[in-house]
């Protein structure tokens, strides 16, 4: 929803745009047009929710991890993602909205999370594909966001990118081991790539031409590169990695363009893209219900912690 900039004080708006153009970070205390704030409220909270909801498809396999090493790596990885969620909720709170409010919007369907997590993870190979492809796509996006104009968000991205690349390597290693395993493991790895390839391309969002938020957020340097550029970077990086370990990208039209130096792919199935965004993916309901249930089942614990905290404070004051 584009905000009516004409309502804003032109002088402040000009100063604000000048800071942006001069690559000066905007900090929580600084003046900002309402549209800028709302844009970030939507984007940072969605990013935070995605990290937390993303714990579920991987949590689905942590109890069936096939080795001590892979179990430790997966537990640590999911824990990192939860930690990323924390960084991002803190960044989002600097915009004047509490985490409870953000969670309420999520539960009411008013806020979203990355719709790639609405796909199921039916096999162990998905732990490889999610690390390699989904985290891989997220990294391309987050490296670019390190240069976002809003200070807290940019700093959160710098910290997250350090850990995220580690996750991508772990995911790729799972695929590599499986492609060097038995016939069943190779088939499982290829099947997983077949299911996750297109959803990871969809993570970059619609073509810029039909992306509602794109242009304004580019102007405000919230977003530094276009959806299609970022997607292309991901494709060019990932296709050779697949070929290196004998995996076949599920796209008959995939070919390398010598002149441009880029891979060309078929277009994305945008019906599926919008269908899953609208809430009709395989796991939309399951993910949200799971998050709501954990939140509601935990209310008594949060209330107890608050009540206990109050009692201690009162004791301190009266002591």
């Amino acid at each position, binding site marked *: 929803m584009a905000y009516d900039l004409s309502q804003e004080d032109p002088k402040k708006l000009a100063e604000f745009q000048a800071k942006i153009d001069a690559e000066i970070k905007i900090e929580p205390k600084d003046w900002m047009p309402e549209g800028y704030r709302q844009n970030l409220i939507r984007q940072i909270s969605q990013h935070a929710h995605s990290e937390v909801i993303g714990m579920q498809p991987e949590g689905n396999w942590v109890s069936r991890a096939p080795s*001590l090493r892979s179990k430790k790596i997966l537990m640590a990885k999911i824990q990192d993602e939860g930690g990323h969620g924390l960084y991002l909720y803190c960044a989002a709170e600097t915009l004047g909205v509490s985490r409870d409010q953000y969670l309420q919007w999520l539960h009411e369907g008013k806020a979203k999370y990355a719709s790639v997590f609405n796909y199921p993870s039916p096999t162990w190979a998905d732990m490889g594909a999610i690390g390699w492809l989904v985290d891989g796509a997220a990294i391309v996006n987050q490296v670019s966001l390190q240069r976002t104009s809003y200070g807290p968000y940019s700093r959160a991205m710098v910290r997250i990118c350090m850990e995220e690349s580690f996750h991508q390597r772990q995911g790729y290693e799972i695929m590599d081991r499986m492609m060097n395993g038995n016939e069943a493991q190779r088939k499982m790895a290829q099947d997983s790539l077949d299911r996750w390839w297109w959803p990871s391309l969809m993570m970059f969002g619609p073509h810029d031409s039909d992306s509602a938020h794109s242009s304004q957020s580019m102007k405000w340097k919230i977003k530094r590169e276009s959806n299609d550029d970022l997607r292309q970077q991901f494709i060019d990086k990932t296709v050779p990695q697949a070929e290196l370990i004998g995996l076949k990208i599920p796209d008959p039209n995939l070919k390398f363009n010598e002149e441009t130096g880029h891979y060309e792919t078929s277009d994305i199935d945008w019906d599926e893209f919008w269908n899953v965004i609208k809430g009709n993916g395989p796991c939309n309901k399951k993910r949200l219900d799971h998050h709501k249930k954990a939140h509601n089942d935990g209310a008594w614990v949060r209330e107890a912690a608050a009540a206990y905290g109050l009692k201690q404070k009162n004791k301190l004051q009266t002591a």
Partner: protein
Amino acid sequence: MNDSLYKYTLRLADNGLILSHRLAEYISCAPFLEEDLALTNTGLDLLGQSEALLKYAAEIKGGVDEDWLAFARNEEDYFNFHMVEYPNEDYGYVIARQFLIDVFNYYNYTQLVDSKDERIAAVAKKAIKEVTYHLRRSSEWIIRLGDGTEESKTRIQQCLEDLWMYTDEFFEVDEVQEELHKQGIASDLNVIRKQWNQKVAEVLEEATLTKPEKPKYSLVYGKDGGHTEYMGFLLADMQYLKNRYPEATW
């Protein structure tokens, strides 16, 4: 093979293996994000302790590795406490289970730091820092819930009542324990029982909770491979890929 040392090492290893498995199952289910991360952290510590002990047990047995021990044994060859098999019914059971085990781990590893078996002593030296933190964390939660709201007091009291019967096993002394204790390798469970009772009483008192009494409840304990009916379903998940693709490495 030194059967007693093998079994004693697995008793320590399997408590960490199965409890970390229950904590892994609880990922994304905690009352709030910070607690989810903290519980996963506890799980990672326990899994790390378990891995080191499983490596040692594999060497004692010979011919197998720690992954085989973790994922391929028959149910009756696992020697963990019944307590760690209890499912994550809700947060109250998760934290009550953790607290009752943390108190034991703290006093047990405190003694094992001086074990005559260097491998076990080495694990204990690393673990003592971790379990000290675990104990502080879960004690604080028992106190928060005990002295929080009426509802939290009632619920955490019930969880402690339900799990109490599983604590007896912690202190069961059998020939394996006795033999290794005499050799200065295993801990003295009678001493630990007193320390445990005292610490638990302290925390429950501060939490304004009452200490349940302790029925002796089982005939064959996990320490001797006699498990609760929860174990079979846990192993069905944990061993799934190992059972289905026995030769595969991952």
